[in-house]
């Protein structure tokens, strides 16, 4: 049977190979072809080649970036280095042109114009002209740069179809305006073609290559014992030896992995393992892990950040991913609508169920019939529990606590009021017993003598009893209060003492001096002879 077949899916079976080198070369060649269709495929020599290529790409990219940075510094635009890099990155993603081409082009234009803004405008024009005429970007940029320097011959040879008089005038403003008018939108339109899409894919793959290259360089730098770049060559050879013996089970992995490996932090550790072990299996595992970390990076990639100017970012070719993203958004809106509809239906069902809820009916009826606030609150609380209404329950709980507090306060107040009333009654009784008058609510004194006394006159026994209660003893019988106080003072040793002092005339001054000195001594000793707040 003739082997005339057409298929887009091919898998490699290394076991079927008779010999290694020859067939692996053929395999590598075939994988490259497949890789261009499916994406970069990792396997055997491909891995080694990819590692070398990645490091070279990173080195070239870094070199170009540094060269452009120096150029910007030399033209007095050092402060715009970051801006220009961001601009080139955005142009790369927007137009699917590699920064390897954009940087030299921008640098050429910067040399010619000396202005970042003019260079940016000229670069965009050059991209459009390149897409419209089919000339490569470098040729177009060189022609524009020469035009800016006063030589428009190259511009005439671009085949743009511009008026000869315009070109001959040498007025770059006119020429650029004419080019813009004629080729506007060509660069973007190119992306709609299959080739354009593939260019976007190429940009993504190239970026991934540079990123991986950076990771590898970092990793290998770490691996060098003295952290110097000089030892990289040996280490890299070791790595290459190991990689070359890796089997091809990862061959089926597609470029998706390459396009997403953005996290270099994993790579040093993994490659450390690989190099330390010198074990092909370990290398395989390490690269497997690196690959998965790349895929995980895609997982964390924010596809939602795509804007009109970045519509082709972050995907295999960008376009299918954006379609998928749009579809996902549309699906999400649909699901949200369905969820809202379900919620509405659920609310209606809940309302219907409430209508036939006997417990609720009973509580509502009781609530309507209740007259006191406390009962109402309790019923509302029960309804809140029934509804599982947390906010209402909290409110009712607070109201019930407030009602309890008010009730307790009222009880306390009543108790205090009764006490006051009782005391007032006793005072009034005493006043009346002494023949006095008590004030009315209108402060009118009422003469109660004509009224029947409700208070029994106090007897001596009463006072005796009172004295006994006050002093704890009944030995003061027959004494009045003053006498009892004197007696108690005597008992406690604080007896009254009468001192009679006779002072003769000549020693009167001495006595006076003695008193004064005593007062001074008392003052120095801290004894105060004056009352509180009184001046000494």
């Amino acid at each position, binding site marked *: 049977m003739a082997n005339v077949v*057409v298929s887009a899916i*091919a898998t*490699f079976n290394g076991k079927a190979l008779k010999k290694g080198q020859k067939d692996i070369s053929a395999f590598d060649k*075939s994988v490259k072809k497949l890789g261009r269709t499916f994406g970069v495929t990792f396997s055997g020599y491909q891995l080694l080649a990819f590692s070398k290529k990645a490091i070279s790409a990173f080195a070239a990219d870094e070199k170009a970036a540094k060269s452009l940075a120096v150029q910007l510094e030399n033209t007095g635009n050092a402060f715009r280095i970051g801006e220009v890099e961001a601009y080139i990155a955005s142009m790369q993603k927007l137009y699917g042109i590699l920064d390897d081409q954009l940087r030299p082009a921008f640098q050429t234009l910067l040399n010619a114009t000396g202005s970042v803004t003019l260079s940016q405008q000229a670069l965009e024009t050059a991209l459009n002209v390149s897409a419209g005429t089919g000339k490569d970007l470098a040729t177009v940029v060189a022609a524009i740069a020469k035009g800016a320097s006063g030589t428009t011959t190259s511009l005439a040879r671009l085949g743009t179809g511009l008026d000869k008089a315009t070109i001959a005038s040498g007025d770059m403003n006119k020429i650029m305006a004419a080019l813009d008018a004629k080729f506007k939108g060509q660069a973007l339109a190119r992306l709609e073609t299959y*080739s354009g899409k593939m*260019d976007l894919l190429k940009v993504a793959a190239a970026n991934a290559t540079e990123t991986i290259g950076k990771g590898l360089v970092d990793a290998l730098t770490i691996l060098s014992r003295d952290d110097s770049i000089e030892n990289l060559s040996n280490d890299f050879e070791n790595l290459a030896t190991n990689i070359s013996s890796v089997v091809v089970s990862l061959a089926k992995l597609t470029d*998706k992995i390459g396009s997403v490996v953005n996290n270099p932090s994993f790579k040093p550790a993994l490659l450390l393992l690989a190099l330390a072990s010198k074990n092909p299996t370990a290398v395989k*595992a390490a690269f497997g892990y690196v690959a998965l970390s790349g895929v995980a990076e895609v997982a964390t990639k924010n596809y939602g950040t795509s804007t009109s100017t970045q519509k082709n970012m972050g995907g295999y070719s960008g376009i299918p991913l954006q379609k*998928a993203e749009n579809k996902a958004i549309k699906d999400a809106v649909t699901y949200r609508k369905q969820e809202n509809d379900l919620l509405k239906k659920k609310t209606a069902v809940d309302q219907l169920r409430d209508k036939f809820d006997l417990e609720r009916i009973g509580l509502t009826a009781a609530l309507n019939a209740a007259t006191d606030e406390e009962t109402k609150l309790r019923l509302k609380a029960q309804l809140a529990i029934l509804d599982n209404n947390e906010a209402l329950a909290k409110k009712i709980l607070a109201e019930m606590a407030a009602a309890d507090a008010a009730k307790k306060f009222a009880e306390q107040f009543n108790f205090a009021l009764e006490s006051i009333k009782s005391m007032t009654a006793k005072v009034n009784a005493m006043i009346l017993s002494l023949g006095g008058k008590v004030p009315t609510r209108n402060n009118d004194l009422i003469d109660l003598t004509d009224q029947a006394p409700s208070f029994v006159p106090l007897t001596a026994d009463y006072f005796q009893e009172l004295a006994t209660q006050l002093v704890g003893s009944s030995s003061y019988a027959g004494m009045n209060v003053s006498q009892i106080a004197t007696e108690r003072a005597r008992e406690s040793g604080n007896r009254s003492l009468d001192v009679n002092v006779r002072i003769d005339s000549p020693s009167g001054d001495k006595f006076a001096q003695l008193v004064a000195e005593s007062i001074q001594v008392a003052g120095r000793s801290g004894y105060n002879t004056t009352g509180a707040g009184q001046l000494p």
Partner: protein
Amino acid sequence: MPVEIVGVKDVLKGLEFMDEDMRQRIRTAIDPLMRGVAFKAKGFVKSNIDVLSGWTKASGNPGTFPKYDASVVRAGIGYNPGENKTFKNGFKVSNYVYNASRSGSIYEVAGRLNPQGRAPFTFKHEGSGTYVKKSARSRALEEYKSNNPFASQQFIAALEPVTKQPKIKDIRSAGRKTQGRLIYKAWAQDSTKVYDAILNAINATAIDFNKSTEITKAA
């Protein structure tokens, strides 16, 4: 300092799973398109009266030049959703369109090496450099001694030209071995759709994978 990396086996297992998932998706996506390619290829088969009349009369016995029969050629074109046997270069394909009949294969590829037919009166071995005969009886260095030396030129001239695969810059070149008149012609017309379907399937796999392995930051 020793480094311990855990989970590598699981990672590889996960990659295998993802790989298989992607393969299945791709196969599912391209299945109807590949059927379309086969159907279209059958449509390119010329009827018996559109080829050299002598070809339809030739013997169909094995070992001789097969005669052309449109129905046989059509029947020999088909689509296989499975996998074929591994080629000697180590590859095997799946979801492939085949052109299996002898006369169909000849119609498919005739003239793609020498579009004007083989030059008459040449040596059988046309390679450059020093040629060492593989055996003493080899006739590789002899001239062709055909009674009809222009037959190949006439045969190819009677056929329609082969169709090349459209060249896609940096993606696919129009190689000689992908030129043809039946399945390769259909493939040249429909392959972009297949590639798009494959890209979509790959992206769908990636999106699903991302969703299922979404890493959330711990609170």
